């Protein structure tokens, strides 16, 4: 039963592994970027699984409701910022991928490496 | 005095710099540029020589500049050995300028402006080294000297000169950053200061085995003193035009190395403290080894300038040996030998240059009978050679006399034996050449029939030859000046 409480962190670790593996192993640029976004969203899971309190609800204080246990607002604020950072990096990376496709005609890193090595 | 001593030091440093700038600006008009060089040389000599009376009276003029690191200033303080070196360098710069004008015009070398600018900066560095009050200032000017002489060594610019200039730069920069810098910082961390103080700053601050290590780091770190394993840069520097070899590699650059070693022994370690440490014998062995081996190599040399280079390596180690014997007489002998060797070696290099300009010959073997064609040059050459050997009428005899005296005071038989053997070897590689030059028929015809070299060169080398005699006669005031370093 004790280990169940840590299940979130194990999933966080597994997602990180999958994300990093996808970034490092796959040579296709778009595929790596998807892996990168998985890698980043795993971190969101780490932060948000910290804020859960047993019997707590979303931290919105209604009048009249006394001694209500709330979840911890701080990780949520941090993750709101991190999500938008994630999407910004992905958008920029995709724009670079499009330009690479136009410049090199392919988005496979190993082919690009060969094309650069010739001159 | 017209202006205080501190200002004199400042002017002594500023004159070569301003001269270098003026030379750079007047590059396009050779005659104007030559006059600027000469006036700078003369001005520098006057300013430097004006300090001699205050020194003899026991004064130590000082000039403090900016504080570079906490507790370490760029500061200047003139003391006897520094005075001697600066006077030597600035005095001979005049003669050398006259000579190089003749040489450059005679050989019509290209980019002469760069040559004179770098020369002026090299002299600025030499004066800086001479007058520095602490090891840090000395290290700064030591590096400026290395870097400013690089373009001079690589003057021709063809593949061979660039390769040997690379050797020159590699060894000098390598040893100074690789060994001299850590030794200096180690001394600073031990003694808390780097100022040259009579009696040394390392008294009792360093245990026995480490003294040897620090001593060796200094000895081999100061690459310009050309102790045996670190000597290859000197023959490599012979690719430079002869005026460069004459002044820099006979007087300014090499003397800076030996001068630094003497100052480190006298003012950093302190004569008595170092004498009590057994590891100072290491330096004596290294010096003796260098003297003997370089003389043997010189025997086999056929190229005249390389022969003079190896003879310089030997003579430098004389000074190091004298400094390492750590007896009062040998300390004075060290300074005296610096002067004697300077006059003698500059004459020899001037003669070699004159022979090259006149007959385009560089190898000794095809210089038989050249005495008949160039009597003045060969006469000066013989006087220089005699001074190297140490025959009485020339200055060499005086300095060897002091060094022998020091060695006897310390009854250091190794030093005595080396001095005697090397004197014989010197004679062995100089006299046959002089004899052949005067009394043998000319077997190798020169490119075109030639008489003496252009007159400014002949005038310069006869003047320096006379200087060796003058040193023999008027050596006493210099000896008294140097004796001041012994009194605590």
């Amino acid at each position, binding site marked *: 039963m004790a280990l169940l409480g840590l299940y979130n962190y194990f999933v966080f670790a597994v997602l990180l592994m999958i994300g990093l593996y996808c970034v490092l192993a796959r040579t296709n640029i778009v595929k790596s970027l998807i892996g990168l976004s998985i890698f980043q969203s795993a*971190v969101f899971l780490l932060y948000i699984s910290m804020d859960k309190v047993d019997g707590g609800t979303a931290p919105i204080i209604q009048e009249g409701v006394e001694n209500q246990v709330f979840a911890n607002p701080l990780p949520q604020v941090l993750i709101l910022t991190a999500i938008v950072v994630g999407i910004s990096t992905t958008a920029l990376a995709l724009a670079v991928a499009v330009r690479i496709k136009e410049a090199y005609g392919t988005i496979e890193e190993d082919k690009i490496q060969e094309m650069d090595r010739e001159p | 005095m017209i202006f205080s001593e501190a200002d004199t030091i400042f002017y002594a440093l500023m004159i070569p710099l301003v001269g270098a700038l003026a030379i750079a600006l007047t590059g396009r008009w050779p005659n104007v540029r030559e006059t600027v060089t000469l006036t700078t040389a003369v001005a520098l000599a006057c300013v430097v020589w004006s300090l001699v009376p205050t020194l003899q009276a026991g004064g130590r003029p000082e000039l403090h500049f900016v504080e570079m690191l906490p507790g370490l200033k*760029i500061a200047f303080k003139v003391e006897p050995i520094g005075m001697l070196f600066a006077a030597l360098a600035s005095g001979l710069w005049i003669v050398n300028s006259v000579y190089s004008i003749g040489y450059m015009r005679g050989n019509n070398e290209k980019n002469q402006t760069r040559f004179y600018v770098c020369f002026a900066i090299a002299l600025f560095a030499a004066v800086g080294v001479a007058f520095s009050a602490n090891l840090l200032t000395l*290290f700064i000017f030591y590096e400026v000297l290395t870097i400013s002489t690089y373009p001079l060594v690589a003057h021709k610019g063809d593949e061979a000169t*660039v390769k040997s200039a690379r050797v020159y730069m590699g060894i000098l920069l390598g040893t100074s*950053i*690789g060994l001299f810098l850590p030794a200096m910082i180690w001394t600073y961390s031990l003694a808390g200061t780097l100022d040259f103080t009579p009696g040394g700053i390392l008294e009792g601050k360093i245990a026995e085995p480490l003294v040897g290590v620090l001593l060796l780091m200094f000895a081999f770190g100061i690459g310009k003193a050309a102790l045996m394993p670190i000597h290859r840069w000197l023959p490599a520097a012979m690719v430079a035009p002869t005026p460069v070899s004459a002044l820099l590699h006979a007087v300014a650059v090499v003397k800076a190395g030996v001068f630094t070693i003497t100052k480190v022994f006298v003012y950093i370690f302190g004569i008595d403290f170092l004498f009590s440490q057994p590891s100072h014998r290491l330096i004596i062995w290294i010096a003796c080894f260098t003297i003997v081996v370089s003389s043997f190599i010189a025997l086999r040399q056929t190229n005249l300038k390389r022969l003079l280079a190896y003879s310089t390596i030997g003579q430098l180690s004389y000074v190091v040996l004298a400094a390492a014997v750590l007896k009062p007489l040998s300390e004075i002998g060290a300074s005296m030998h610096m002067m004697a060797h300077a006059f003698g070696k500059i004459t020899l290099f001037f003669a070699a240059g004159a022979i090259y300009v006149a007959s385009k010959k560089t190898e000794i073997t095809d210089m038989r009978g050249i005495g008949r064609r160039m009597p003045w040059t060969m006469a000066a050459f013989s006087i220089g050679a005699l001074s190297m050997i140490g025959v009485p009428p020339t200055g060499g005899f005086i300095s060897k006399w002091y060094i022998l005296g020091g060695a006897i005071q310390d009854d250091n038989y190794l030093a005595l034996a080396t001095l005697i053997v090397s004197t014989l070897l010197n004679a062995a590689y100089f006299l046959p050449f002089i004899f052949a030059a005067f009394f043998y028929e000319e077997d190798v015809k020169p490119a075109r029939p030639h008489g003496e070299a252009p007159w400014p060169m002949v005038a310069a080398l006869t003047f320096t030859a006379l200087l060796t005699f003058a040193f023999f006669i008027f050596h006493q005031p210099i000896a008294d000046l140097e004796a001041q370093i012994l009194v605590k």
Partner: protein
Amino acid sequence: MTLYDQLPALVVAVLLFTAPIAYMLRLHGFPWAAATAAVVTSFAVACSLAATVIGGETIIYEMGGWPAPYGIVLHIDALSALMAMLITGASSAALIFGYKSLADEVGEETAPAFFAAWLLCTAGLVGMVITGDAFNIFVFMEISSLSTYVLVSAGPDRRALISTYRYIVMGTVGATFYLIGVGFLYMVTGTLNTADLAARVGQVEDIRLVLVAAGFVSVGLAVKAAVFPLHAWMPNAYTFAPNAVTVFIAAASTKVSLYVLMRVDYAIFQNSIANHDIQLTLFLVPLGVLALFVGSLLAIYERNLKTLLAYSSVAQIGYIALGMAMTSVAGLTGAIVHMFNHGLIKGGMFMAVACLALRYRTVNVANLAGAGKAMPWTMAAFVIGGLGLIGVPLTPGFISKWYLVLAALDKGWLGVFLIVVILVSSLLAVIYVWKVIEVAYFREPRANAVPVTQEAPLAMLIPTWIVVLTGVWFAVDSSVPVGLASSAARTLLGVAP
């Protein structure tokens, strides 16, 4: 609240405030002017901040008026002031210098976006340096990284794109590692303020999480700082970015991550993890030594001048890592002073390279032959920079080498080994600097090479020489950088100033 108390916020606010303006107003030449004005004002503010903290005090500025652990707080001490000065100074010098070379490389069309990105990059770096909140460092790290990606991708050559892509991937992985580290720290202490973290990390009993957090933060920042094994992105990014951009990022951006690594390791972990300094030494010394040798060797065999200088930067970062690894006041002072000096030296050298590139249209060392005669002033600036890399006196490099060797002296046998490493790598630096000098001064230009007779434009030469001469000035009178660095080192190590 006089203007004087508002300075800490102003140094970033000015930059952030002008970025959208520079993007919106698309008049000819306006973006560059707005960017330069903003960066120069920010530099002035940074200098006045440095003046107040040189004595050793620290300025605390509560953002939004909320007290320390609850709101975000700006924490400016000698180290952050020195870094802020370096960043804004390098940025203004690069901008003023880069007017002509940027006009040459960045078209009129993308100028507003480019200069807005430049402002944001400076703001991001300065924001990272002065903030006192761990998560805030991540946010500003993202701002600076994203804008650096934009600046690097603006390079004319198509390889700029692929190097930007690799830079994005490694940069994001590094930033996410840092985020994971901060997450674990938050999980264990419950706070994000660096000062509060430092106080509370000591009382944590399950030490495992703190160790792993330190590991993640250090590795993440090492990637961003291009410390040796994780530096793969840097040489290409420096080479293919526009020249003025390389001047800026070479002088400032990697140093900021080293600054954060230093602050995190010393302020937070030093007194909380048991033998932290031994772990730090074991982590940084091998990396530093490898960085020195591999960096210098790669630089020796490199044909492209900008990549050569990039590999030399990898080596110089190795010096800073060694300085940090010594965990002594002198060692840290040496590391901080070298961060400042290396910024000056590399900034000047890359400016000279930009001048060469403008005239020779190429930065391949082989066809720069004869540059010594064609462009004497530029090559002279490059040579002085090169001497700085070697550590010849009268150049900034000498001062940092002095402190590093002095610090290594009282480290026993490890110290002797470090001294040997430092000095041998300076000799390697002699080789690759002399390789360029020999080509430039002693080799005749090839027949088919484009004949260059014109010196670089004055507008580019003057800033180059200003940077070089400031370097020489700080080499001769090093009281300002060394004063700031030693008081910073003492505050970091908690030794009484």
